[in-house]
């Protein structure tokens, strides 16, 4: 598992505002006008963000290692 800083993004073309991410990881996602937004785009690593990304039915959440750019979620 990648430690250190992670980059979190939500693709608003794909997001349907299901609220799954904000319920799973309320510290990291909020829903506004039917779309999800990361609370911060750059965060310290936290497994729950990967859970949220992997729970998205639209695979709209992208989590990357900030230094290497490696994709951490969603799982392929």
């Amino acid at each position, binding site marked *: 598992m990648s430690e250190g800083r992670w980059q979190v993004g939500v693709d608003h073309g794909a997001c349907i505002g299901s*609220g799954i991410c904000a319920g*799973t990881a309320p510290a990291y996602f909020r829903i506004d006008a039917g779309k999800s937004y990361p609370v911060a785009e750059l965060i310290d690593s936290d497994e729950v963000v990967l*859970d949220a990304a992997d*729970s998205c039915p639209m695979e709209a959440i992208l989590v990357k290692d900030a230094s290497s750019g490696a994709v951490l979620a969603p799982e392929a």
Partner: protein
Amino acid sequence: MTAIDGEPRIYPFTAEQLRLDPLYAHLRKEEPLTRVRLPFGEDAWLATRHVDARVVLGDARFSRALSVGRDEPRTRPEQGNGGILSMDPPDHTRIRRLATKAFTMRRVELLRPRAQEIADGLADEMLAGGSRADLVEQFALPLPITVICELLGVPVEDREHFRVWSDAFLSTTSLTLEQVMEYKGKLWQYMGGLIEQRRVEPTDDLIGALVLARDEQDVLSEDELISLTVGLLVAGHETTATQIPNFVYVLLNHPDQLAWLRERPEQVAQAVEELMRYVPLGTAAAFPRYAKEDIEVGGVLVRAGEPVLVAVASANRDESVFEDPDELRLARSTNPHIGFGHGVHHCLGAPLARLELQVALGTLLGRFPDLRFAVPQEQLRWKRGMLVRGLESLPIEW
């Protein structure tokens, strides 16, 4: 802050056919959080507005897990183990994640050709059989049942058995408590058998993958495994099988909208969203959320430990969100309905349900240009004593 005096309202409100009780509209306007008393369990708050519904369903300060051990407000005698629907993160996330991947939109889209093939086969049989059929028996049930069976790895020829047992999970009063317990037990045992088979002979279907997650990674317990697979089988067909006839019933009663869709078959996905909004599938709000701390919702202070029910069908008719909410408008382009719920319990199978509903409507409209009711509407038989509203049978002709 509104203080609510007096007796709670008796709930559920009326739920005849697909009509929504006008009391919901009154409550949205005057009393967005109201006290209700259900046939079983403690009194609850009922939220009727879209904005409040999303808070109660989406905010992590509301819990489903707290319902365990409480006398949950409900419409059926037994307070069953709700499986992942009675869990909160992180337990809920741990188990649901195992199935999520199979139901992402990307993965489900790969099933579209097969779903279309099944739908075409059913349409062929209906057409070959004459000019009249029962849409429920000959199309709406077999389509989602075949799809979910193939996905899970459940032999579709066992359908006649588990169809009967499945109803136990949706019954409020249609079955006796003894029948409910018996059928649930039988389905539980049946699924246990399928799981054991995979331990002897591994398979690459979803049940096979979940068995590996248990046996090799110990991600979930045996009970959780059976509960999840039973849940996937039941939820994986009952609701879609009920909605297909509901949608057809609504469209046949809105000839202008039906004509609009016939002229624009490419808009079927958008039409499905509007039908999801418009059709009140549930007979009543269910699965209350318990406040983990004091929270103000709809101008009312909900105290920690109090249960709140969400009237999804009412939220989907909220005039502050939807223009002319009581009108079916398939052309609606912005449609933030919560027909699949909201928050962590947002329907796991929503992408599959959407696909099946799109395929079903597309096929029916494409293959049956003169589709109509085969009996007067007064003779249609509606389900009774179930969590969902729907038709026992839908005789159609063409």
